[in-house]
């Protein structure tokens, strides 16, 4: 049975038809054309589909799209664009934190959520924050390095 759902997507109000059992990941990609959010497993194991729901990182493959009604969703497309990148996006580029890049959108969204609630995370807090995001290429060292560097940049900006 098709129904309708309305929510805020990257700061803009959207309304779309959805099937009752469609996941938010599917609706973002197939109905709204935002392909930055990736689906790696469809069962909440890999974290490639991570988005922010009212600021909290969530696996969008596990969330029914209808549950997004009235809420605020941020995807990789809403994190930052060329020319105005989020510090964590800039840091991932500079530190070579991605290889194939498929885990990137989910990791970046998780990292941004961490830095929003804790501007000075410890390495342990960084590792905890990305525990739900699998990367099969890098071994995580450069990813952790990049997130810590992004937090230091943010600190630098605040003290200026």
């Amino acid at each position: 049975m098709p129904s309708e759902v309305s929510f805020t997507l990257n700061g803009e109000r959207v309304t779309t038809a959805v099937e009752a059992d469609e996941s938010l990941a599917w609706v973002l990609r197939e109905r709204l054309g935002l392909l930055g959010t990736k689906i790696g497993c469809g069962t909440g194991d890999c974290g490639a589909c991570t988005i922010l729901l009212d600021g909290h990182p969530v696996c969008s493959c596990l969330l029914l799209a209808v549950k997004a009604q009235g809420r605020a969703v941020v995807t990789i497309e809403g994190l930052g664009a060329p020319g105005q990148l989020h510090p964590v996006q800039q840091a991932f580029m500079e530190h070579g934190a991605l290889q194939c890049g498929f885990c990137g959108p989910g990791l970046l969204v998780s990292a941004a959520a961490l830095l929003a609630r804790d501007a000075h995370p410890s390495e342990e807090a960084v590792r905890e924050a990305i525990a739900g995001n699998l990367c099969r290429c890098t071994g995580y060292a450069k990813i952790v390095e990049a997130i810590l560097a992004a937090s230091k940049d943010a600190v630098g900006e605040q003290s200026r």
Partner: protein
Amino acid sequence: MTTITHPAPPTVIEETPSGAVGRRVPRHDALLQVTGRVVYGDDMHAAGMLWARAVRSPHPHARIAEVDLLPALSSPGVRAIITGRDVPRNRYGFTHQDQPVLAEDCVRHVGEAVAVVAAETLRQAEEAAARVMVRYEPLPAVFDPLEAMRTDAPRLHQDTNVAEHIRIREGDVEAGFAQADAIVEEEFTTGFVEHAHLEPHAGLAIPSPDGAITIYSSVQRPFLVAGDTAKVLAMSQNRVRLIATGVGGGFGGKNEMTFEPWIALLALRTRRPVKIVFTREEEFQATTVRHPYRMRYRTGVRADGTLLARAVEIISDCGAYVSWGASTLAKASIHAAGPYAIPHVKIDGYLVYTNNPVGGAMRGFGVPQVGFAYECHTDAVAEAVTMDPIAFRLRNALRDGGHLPTGQVLERVTLAETLRQALEMAEWRREGRAS
């Protein structure tokens, strides 16, 4: 007359000394990656496209008695279904042409594809795939390569399950063992590994009005896949265009043809673009894995630590089809004696069919398996002559002008030097032992 102008040759080489070397240089696609704009296989869409879904065997080994497509054909949204009979040349492989594009007479592993459905939506394709009625007559299956080598084992292809025997001989290994002061014999095993690239196999086929086909696919070897696809479709190479999308991880797991001929056939038949994305379950069951190896090492050594003889037997579980199994085993066999100078060497590699998942290429191509074995074994051999394992390695390490058991002469060998530098960096010390 058309004049073709070539772009200026790349200036990277001239720039290198003062440019990239020693500096952090972002990947060429780093900005696309961090903004989520790399186009991977699953990101391909085309107007009016259909979704494909495979029908896969629940049995490890069974005869296909009957395939009834009627209930599925009348399922909502279905536009076409193909089986092995629709594939013009239903057989392929790099070294052994043993694998069907779609199983026809018999299935040889769980997850082997028997039919593929194309429907208007993914959901309709899934529903129709569940309605394809395949009647299987289960056959005895074999999952252990040692059992599969026995003459009374269930056979997968021909009169023997040994698909390949690789032999390397140097010197006289028995004479070498006869001169040895100590002989060490050990067995090592390694398990299956799934590549588990985060992006599943995914792609899109777009038919041309003249019957040619363009396939977008997340593959590591686009030209090989294009060639194999043309071959099994009995189309000339220039009518099959394969474009590799961004690859969301491969590690050797996207090194061969998988769904490309299926979506090409479905697209040509329906005259519509056809998309497919494997599920994670399909990735584990139906795509290639790293071969499990069983490796027996026997080494003869003199009391002063000089290696004299080594005999290695490798048994590779290649699964139901050879795929990259023979080439992987060849590479493993070439490296099996390790980077050490040994005058008498005997290596036997056996590639054995089982009803397990198909082994393919994976990072290191057989060498990680033997590397694990010969380095563990080297420690044990050093121990047998009460030598420090580092000193033992330095004594026997291959050097410039040394050769592998195949006769390949090696140049610029830096093993000993690398080992010394690594020891220094690791601040390696062994009490009471020289290194």
